[in-house]
């Protein structure tokens, strides 16, 4: 039920983010979702791509610190309260959301959210048991 995310360490200096996107575009890797968490000194770039292995290898060759991280992609109702319902459900079950971000999608009534949990498998199980649709990696990368 998991999907893989590519996480990249970035120093806070000009041009590093575009260096990542350049490397991936040269390698023909498509970025499906992107989130940048940064502090005054450094940032962590998180990507969902269509080819994890190629992305990881080319970025490592490009001198970046890269890691793949398991995440859960869930379908969230694109209406008021849709996200709240999910977060509430998780809180009640003692699951912490480390971070989350939206997946870019062109159409439809649902939004895809990427979640990173402390207890990943348990979180995925609770979500599906409560009728939240989880999107597995293969489907996600092709979206």
């Amino acid at each position, binding site marked *: 039920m998991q999907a893989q995310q590519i996480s990249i360490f*970035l120093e806070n200096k000009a041009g*590093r983010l575009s260096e990542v996107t350049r490397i991936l575009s040269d390698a023909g890797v498509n970025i499906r979702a992107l989130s940048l968490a*940064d*502090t005054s000194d450094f940032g*962590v770039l998180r990507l969902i791509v269509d080819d994890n292995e190629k992305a990881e290898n080319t970025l490592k060759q490009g*001198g*970046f610190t890269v890691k793949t991280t398991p995440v859960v992609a869930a379908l969230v109702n694109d209406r008021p309260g849709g996200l709240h319902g999910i977060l509430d459900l998780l809180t009640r079950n003692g699951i912490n959301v*480390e971070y989350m971000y939206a997946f870019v999608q062109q159409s439809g009534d649902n939004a895809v959210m990427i979640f990173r949990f402390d207890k990943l498998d348990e979180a995925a199980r609770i979500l599906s048991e409560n009728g939240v649709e989880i999107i597995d990696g293969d489907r996600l990368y092709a979206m």
Partner: protein
Amino acid sequence: MIFNIEYETMPREALESIQLRRLQATLSRVYAAVPFYRKQLDDAGVKPGDVRCLSDLSRLPFTTKQDLRDNYPFNMFAVPMDNVVRIHASSGTTGQPTVVGYTARDIDTWAELMARALSAGGATRGDIIHNAYGYGLFTGGLGVHYGAEKLGASVIPVSGGNTRRQVIIMKDFGPSILTATPSYSLHLAEAAEEMGVSFRDLNFRFGVFGAEPWSESMRREIEEKLHLKAVDIYGLSEVIGPGVSIECHEAQKGLHIFEDHFIPEIIDPETGQPLPWGETGELVITSITKEAFPVIRYRTRDITSLNPEPCICGRTMARMNKVSGRTDDMLIIRGVNVFPSQIESVLMEIKGVEPHYQLEVDRKDNLDILTVRVEISDAAFSDEVKELQRLSETIGNNIKETLGVSASVKLAEPKTIARSEGKAARVIDRRKL
């Protein structure tokens, strides 16, 4: 194996009588042949004949790096140029380089000392030595080379640089001993990894590393990554080059000083007073067999201590502890003495952190600001910002705890801290004092 059983295991009493005789002969020669030393002794009111026991050594004046520079290039030579067969020079990173000369006998002495050193480090006649010290004016390359030949081992004079080719040679020639600077050995490990070559599959048994200070934790890292036993070698071109002292692979605890050729002392770098065995201070060396370029009480600026206890390897020569810093690498930050090697040890104690770091010192509003840049390795990287912040806090706290100085820690992308193929640039001091 002990290369020269007679001298290396000599009882201290016999050793000291040889030292005294050789010291007296050296003093008479330099007094007669080197105007600098004659003036030094005259100014101090000491005649070579006044030195009647080893403790009289402390009556002689020191020789400093600046003295050698002032006598650039050949004025410290104690023999006519006709008798000099080799010239080396130290890198003049700051100011004038220092030039040293060797007679044929000096070259032979040096080869003997390096053969002893390589033996203590685990090498035998049957070994193939991959010598990645630079060949040239720097003494490292040729020092190891002559010692290896004296020992009867096979030496690959690969020198520094062209790292990918070195990896191929290591794979194809199967050398069993690596000689290199410790930072270059890690550079080799990185290059091998990038090329898909594992040191696990190579033939190395021992590595002899020196020419720059390195910590115990760096030793652990090298041993783990290169799959060999790592020993420390010490020397400086002003004294002879590598081969002044060497760690035995049996104990890996302190470097045996070849005391039949050099007399070591430890002094307080501030006052110049000799310190007793075991106390930490600046190492001072007097050469007692060199012909072309003898040094009397040369201040090495290296910080260490001496240990006369017998060693499990059987050598009786006193051991100096691993050099923990240099008096001139020492940073004084808000009044606290800081050696880069101490920061390195702190980093190596933290899981997943590699010793790729750089210290930056600035002065803002009359306050010293220490910034430690640390490269983030795959092992230490997390996709969660708070984990990375926790890591940088841990590094900062451990530095504060161990060194008593606050540092701001900046995590850096891999390979962004300049790694030279020889020595690593550890400190950028931007203070205008």
